[in-house]
């Protein structure tokens, strides 16, 4: 509750919280409030511009984009969030442990992450999907794992600074366990850049999920998944921009919302600035 109140006092945090709440509400209530069936064709109104009947216009089959976006929010946003959370949590822990232990362990972990990072994340996700079989959940897992090395790098670099500080030495001199040092002494002090990076990654996750769907490995047409919508509408871009603009704008709002929320959280979670905000 205290964090929430502080977040509302922080201008970025409040804006981010508002946008993210909007997105989450859409994800939950979307199917209930959608005015049209997202998969119903309106052949009389193909490529319609926004109007009272179709607030965001229609696509090449005349499907109502507004309804498609409302219905698609759930799969798109929740799956992207899940993928980001998996990647961030895994990466942060690997990074902190590797940075703290140093030496051979660090070398080994970091060389492996370097190798993984050398493979484009899409390709890497494809490999994982090829191994696990294609489904929406496997796609989420694949993206999460593909994000892990980048997050590990970031949290490790912060850990290297934190680890040389005296409070870590003090904990070691006190004979604290590895678990306490990593989870209580180091991790909270490395979390700020990790959270910010994580919020940026939400947008990437949406796009990667879309690409996987486009390749037939995630959501399948005619599912109203946002990324898939953009991928499909690409062919018709010159006839009408609306089928690309509407889901594109939706993704942008999610990205900006999470980004602002991330900035706000970073300030609020920092005990130094948190209570003056």
């Amino acid at each position, binding site marked *: 509750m205290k964090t929430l109140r502080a977040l509302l006092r922080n201008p970025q945090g409040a804006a981010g919280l508002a946008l993210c709440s909007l997105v989450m509400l859409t994800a939950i209530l979307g199917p209930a409030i959608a005015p049209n069936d997202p998969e119903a064709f309106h052949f009389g109104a193909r490529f319609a511009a926004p109007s009272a009947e179709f607030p965001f216009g229609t696509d090449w089959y005349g499907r109502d984009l507004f309804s498609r976006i409302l219905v698609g929010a759930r799969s798109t946003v929740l799956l992207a969030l899940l993928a980001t959370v998996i990647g961030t949590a895994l990466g942060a822990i690997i990074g902190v442990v590797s940075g703290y232990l140093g030496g051979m362990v660090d070398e080994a972990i970091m060389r492996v992450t370097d190798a993984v990072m050398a493979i484009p994340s899409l390709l890497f996700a494809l490999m994982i999907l090829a191994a696990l079989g294609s489904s929406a959940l496997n796609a989420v897992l694949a993206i999460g794992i593909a994000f892990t090395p980048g997050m590990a790098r970031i949290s490790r670099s912060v850990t290297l600074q934190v680890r040389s500080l005296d409070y870590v030495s003090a904990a070691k001199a006190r004979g604290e366990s590895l678990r306490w040092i990593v989870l209580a002494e180091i991790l909270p002090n490395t979390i700020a850049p990790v959270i910010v990076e994580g919020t940026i990654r939400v947008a990437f996750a949406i796009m990667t999920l879309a690409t996987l769907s486009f390749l037939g490995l995630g959501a399948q047409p005619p599912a109203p998944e946002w990324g898939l919508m953009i991928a499909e509408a690409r062919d018709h871009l010159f006839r009408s921009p609306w089928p690309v603009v509407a889901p594109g704008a939706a993704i942008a709002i999610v990205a900006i919302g999470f980004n602002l929320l991330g900035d706000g959280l970073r300030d609020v979670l920092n*005990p130094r600035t948190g209570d003056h905000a």
Partner: protein
Amino acid sequence: MTLTVRDYALYYDTATGPVRILDDISLDIARGEVLGLVGESGSAKSSLANAVIRDLPGKVHAERGSICLGDEDITRASAATMTSLRGKRIAMVFQNAATTLDPVQTLGNHLLETLERHTTLDASARQARALELIGMVGLPDPAAMMLRFAHEVSGGEKQRVVLALAFACEPELILFDEPTSALDATTAATLLDLFRELQARTGVSALFISHDLGTVADIAHRVAVIYGGRIVEQGPTEAIFARPQHPYTQALLASLPRPSDRLTARGLATSGARPAPRRGEMPACLFSGSCPHHDPAICDAQRVHAVPIADRSIACARVARGETLPTPDAPAPLPSPRDSAVLLEAQNLSVTYGRPSLTDRLRGRTALQVRAVRDISFQLHQGETLALVGESGCGKSSLARSLSGLQPFAGKTLLGGVETTPDSAAWRARVQTIFQNPDSSLNPRHTLATILGRPLKLFRPDVDRPAEIARLLQRVHLPADYANRYPHQLSGGEKQRVAIARALAAEPDVIICDEITSGLDAAVQAAIVRLLREIQAASGTALVFITHDLGILRHVADRVAVMYLGEMVETCEVSALDAAPWHPYTEALLSSSHSVDPQSRARRVRLQGSLPKRTQDLPGCPFASRCPRHLGPQCDTQRPPLRQPEDGHAILCHLADDTLHAVPPIWQFKTPERTTP
């Protein structure tokens, strides 16, 4: 007048409103005069230098008054005018030479560039002038020095180059911002000598900013004391230090150690000043919140300004009425509960850095190894304080880390006569460490309750934790409701108290204090030292007190071990520091510490020569390359013997006992009330 500042005030804009940085500043620096500006951390003394050089780091909210260089008001000067003034008419010497010099330029290039920018000399004349400047600041082999990079020379040499840069265009005014604070005492002393000599020769004026009153007492003709962005007292150096009149100056001086303290049994005043208000409505007198002589009828009547009284100007309403305010009383030093039983013992302890890497080992190369601590043996008795003194790189911190179980070492450690390794649970429960910087030794994400609760959970799991945390806070004189605070909500001194409370939580027999007072202001330092003594008296804890400051050592230590290049060159009772015999290094160290006491004079012993490479294995005495009492080849080739000129006094030196005894005293005190210890 070289510099005239009149009624200068500066306010910065911050997110939470305007902040008063400086106000009511009036000062003059005559031609050839050195004005010392002293103040504690947060007194805005550096901001004044920034204002004079017109490089204000903050967003200026308001600026009033005038700063005149000669006849020109530089607060109105254009950016272009200032660019041509800086380096030519005003030069600046910063605290940290390592970051002042550009790492990708040779030292010579720095000088040539400045000369090219501000003089009309041609290339060969510039080269000649640069060589002359490098010679002038006492650097050997100027031609070779020109071609070196900053990382290839020592800290003291870097600061000499910065000094040469400042003198390059023969400026009228040089601003010094803590120029010697980052240097070792012996290096700082030679640098100050150099500046004094250059100043006398060139007749340059200087504003010398420092938190170290001893340094300022040594170099300045006049002194201005700044508190909360205001100058509270200003006058001739001797007069201010001999007879401080403003209550703030009095409190400041009363909390500073002096070389004669042990002889006169003088204690240190612990009543420091609170930070001055910076926002909103200002009290009539800035110091009234901390002033022991605050009288609302007089002090709060009207805004207090600095007024000239006899030889000085002073901002105090009561002094202005002709009153003489008494100096605060300092509590008498507390004795330590020392006992003859040996508690902790180290035998032949060595720390070596630099392990050959795998590729080096495969290629049969030996890696360069640094021997940070060599073969040290010492004993710590129950309830006593052993001070480890030495300059940076002498191995004192490596030794502390070894004894805290953070650094692997060779050798044996005994606790209560039983061999125990520092990384064992038995050792950890009885030996605790306090680190130098409380900003980094307390986790910013933890409340004090968590910080103090952890050692309780680990070492005394049975106690009632909240009650014990409250008791610990109370023992270090902090209110119990601090338990829910975060470290950043505390001042520097309070943070260090929390660090002390954390060490006490385990109820240890030994506390290792690694430079715990070095980042603190004098009054806070005095209070921390007092607190340590109180704790010792109550619990009989033994302390290993690591420091580079000889002044404070006289107030905390029972025995002293002087370290140089990883070796203990001298161990003695603290009282033995007052008279010969000394190791020649101890002698130099004693001589380079400054005193604010105008009644004392130090015999000058300055170290020449350079430190040997740390990776070199020296066959002779480690101090041979800089020793002013160097005997001859035996110093360079033979290990010095461990001499015992008196009981409990050991000196590692080739000099004979008689020679060591015959060394004349370093400090001479004119104080009449000298008492024997």
